[in-house]
């Protein structure tokens, strides 16, 4: 597939907004999911290690 030039590639035959919009939204969804996962992990770890420390003291 030979695009000829960068601007052709971005333009996508005049439908650049739709093509890149779709890919962008998908990327955002994936980033959000991974972000939520990592946040969940961090919160859970903090809470569990806290509890563990308290148990050790008490």
């Amino acid at each position, binding site marked *: 597939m030979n695009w000829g030039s960068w601007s052709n590639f971005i333009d*996508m*035959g005049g*439908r650049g907004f739709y093509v890149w919009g*779709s890919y962008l*939204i998908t990327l955002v969804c994936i980033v959000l999911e991974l972000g939520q996962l990592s946040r969940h992990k961090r919160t859970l770890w903090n809470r569990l290690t806290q*509890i*563990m420390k308290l148990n050790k003291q008490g």
Partner: protein
Amino acid sequence: MAINIFKYSSPAAFYPIAGKMIPVFYVLAAILTIVGLYISFLVAPTDATQGEVYRIIFIHVPAAWMSMFIYMIMATWAGLGLILNTRLSSMMAQALAPTGAMFTFVALITGAFWGKPTWGTWWEWDARMTSELILLFLYIGYMSLTAAIDDVRRADKAGAILALVGAVNVPIIYFSVKWWNTLHQGASVSMTRAPSMAKTMLLGMLIMALAAWMYSIAVALSRVRLLMLEREKSSAWVQEVLESKS
């Protein structure tokens, strides 16, 4: 083989194994995505009728496939958890749901982005898009129900019933929506491509679908590990894991 599986069906045994598998699946997902995108943009040719905008299918179709596939896998795990009374199976089902819902959402949005330039409207009530929307409702129902029940085992089993009822209903719903659509003859548009699809286009979709599958496994395993820690937090093996990391 069967004995091996049951050995790893205890969270304590599965936790470290899942931990080792996760990076592998992420790497596979990344590689496949790169290859898939390469094919999608640099190999697959311009389409005769739709020009360049058809390239959205390289996300739309894999996302739609995954949304259906994950629902079936989720229902299977949930069903296994119900029948065999294994905790891990139910946890896998709950770990899969959000990713499945995400792909359903992506399928719907990319479908809209494809529809607007191609057929003029952001939304068409055709059989596949409408069924996809209903699938999203089924996912949301499952996640809402399991979240609303405090007792973990009740949540697992109730969710399993809902997921299985949903799974049985999916073909019925699809058939009825198809019937509804053809009779009302509103949308004669179809999101399925004409049979004469270039081989490279099919290849691109397959590779992207594989990438999505690897990604889903990685995310589901990560989530199930968190679920295991949460649910078994007072058990010895979790204490050991926490100790070793802190």
